[in-house]
């Protein structure tokens, strides 16, 4: 299939491109949403256009199936010719597809499944990155809170950590959060 990608997240676009190429597809254009999409469509004649659900430029693609004397291959939203379940999964993953009307549905579905998988994976990556950042922040704050306890209560490092952990357990919060509230309190005193 001839696929056109429209995304302003270059990391995600690269992931998706790789996956599509290894599935035997051709990526005929990679664009950012601010590019001239209609011109690119008429130049590259894609079978499928994959675009982020929340891209403002989707409304431009919506017009491809409408009032088109000079476009012999009307392009429609994937949802209008497919199983509702795949369309819904795609939207939840954050990708929508515009396809040439009448395109064979089994090959189309494989392209869209690849897109859903890559968008999901990318979302998971972003979440993981955010979690890693939180973990790093936790370790930093726990270290600082231990320092405060060691200095003010004259505790050893192990004792300070045990106390911090007990505080977290008593209040039913994560140790990082306990450390942050202790630091905030220490700042006030």
């Amino acid at each position: 299939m001839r696929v056109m990608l429209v995304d302003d997240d270059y990391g995600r676009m690269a992931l998706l491109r790789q996956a599509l190429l290894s599935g035997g597809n051709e990526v005929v254009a990679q664009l950012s949403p601010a590019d001239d999409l209609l011109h690119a469509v008429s130049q590259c004649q894609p079978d499928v256009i994959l675009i982020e659900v929340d891209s403002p430029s989707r409304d431009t693609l919506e017009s491809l199936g409408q009032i088109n004397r000079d476009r012999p291959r009307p392009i429609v939203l994937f949802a209008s010719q497919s199983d509702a379940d795949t369309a819904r999964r795609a939207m939840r993953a954050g990708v929508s597809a515009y396809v040439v009307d009448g395109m064979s549905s089994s090959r189309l579905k494989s392209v869209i499944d690849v897109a859903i998988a890559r968008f999901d994976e990318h979302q998971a990556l972003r979440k993981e990155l955010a979690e890693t950042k939180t973990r790093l922040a936790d370790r930093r704050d726990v270290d600082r809170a231990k320092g405060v306890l060691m200095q003010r209560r004259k505790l050893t490092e192990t004792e300070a950590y045990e106390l911090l952990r007990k505080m977290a357990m008593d209040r039913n919060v994560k140790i990082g959060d306990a450390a942050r509230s202790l630091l905030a309190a220490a700042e006030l005193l």
Partner: protein
Amino acid sequence: MNVNTTSAGLEKKRLQIGIIPLVDAAPIIVARDKGFFERHGLHVDISVEASWASIRDKVVAGMLDGAQMLAPMPLAATLGVDGIGTPMLTALSLNLNGNSIAVSEGVYRAMRLTRREPVSAGRALKALLEHDRIDGRKPRVFAHVFPFSTHHYELRYWLAASGIDPDRDLRLEVVPPQLVVQHLRDGRIDGFCAGAPWGAVAELAGVGQRIVNTHQIWNNSPEKVFGVTREWADAHPRTHRALVAALIEACRWLDEAEHRPEAAQLLIDAGALDAPPATIRTALDMPVPGDPFFGPGLVFYRNAATFPWVSHAIWFIRQMQRWGQVAESVDAAAVAAEVYRADIYRDAAGPLGIPLPDTDHKDEGVHAQDWSLSCSGGTLAMGSDRFFDDAVFTLGGGQPA
């Protein structure tokens, strides 16, 4: 805590409502920030969406309970021509007027307009396009915002009535409103029809000039509606009515002139609109009476603005048929009555004690001035409904009521 007794038995109280970053999203933002939703027992979270396509998809998927929509969108959805074909309905019009047609500085200079109004602007544009054709220039490009938009039909109406074939003499493209100014600057489009504040933003940026206000094309023309899927409306009848009542109250609040500056501030503070604050304020200012360009400006409540006139829906379906989006065989009156639910509006508005029209239809193009409509609850002050080419749109077959 809610103070309104009608909140008893709401099927759902916590709701997600979608809006597009435009000044006429004001009723929804006002209903949230001035407590109108809350008074009806509703907790509403507003989700700012990037495109009309995403509004439609998320309403269909149930990720949004309802949304600000272009008036023709629920019709296109029910007619099955919008790509998804999930039946939708509206029981509330959110506003009248508000769009403008702007052209690039270059086109503006070439048009040499002395007045900003549709007849002379149409004539000047037609002359310019004739010149282009003789010079062998490639077709000009005008943008609107969605295939099923008031902007699209208003633009086509104006062009066609000016003797310009919108499919042959120029090219129409869809550009999202937040990108029109950039596209005009880059020379990718020559003009656009978009909602407030984007025409003013183009002027402020020095890249374009407004030449026609859509009020001048069709006085007090319907603009946005509050839309839901038919399935959602059937499953949440009480919640739906509470939403409509809260939004009517927000629209009434918005049409008190002294509230407009506060409304502008709410929109600016909500951060939904990435436009210069001055243009948001100006778009909400009430023009001086009789302003030849803006007319009454954005109207949210006056002139029975909140009522979902079934005749408006018929007008939109006729435009879809005129431009080949929908088959001639479609029964416009039947579909319109299915989608524009004046009965639900009356249910919701009844407890508010406001005058309600006795009929679901009104003729268009028959009042050049403000007029009044008598109804069982008293009289309703109505606005002019003139088309710039003096056309008359009646359902009785030509004879105005």
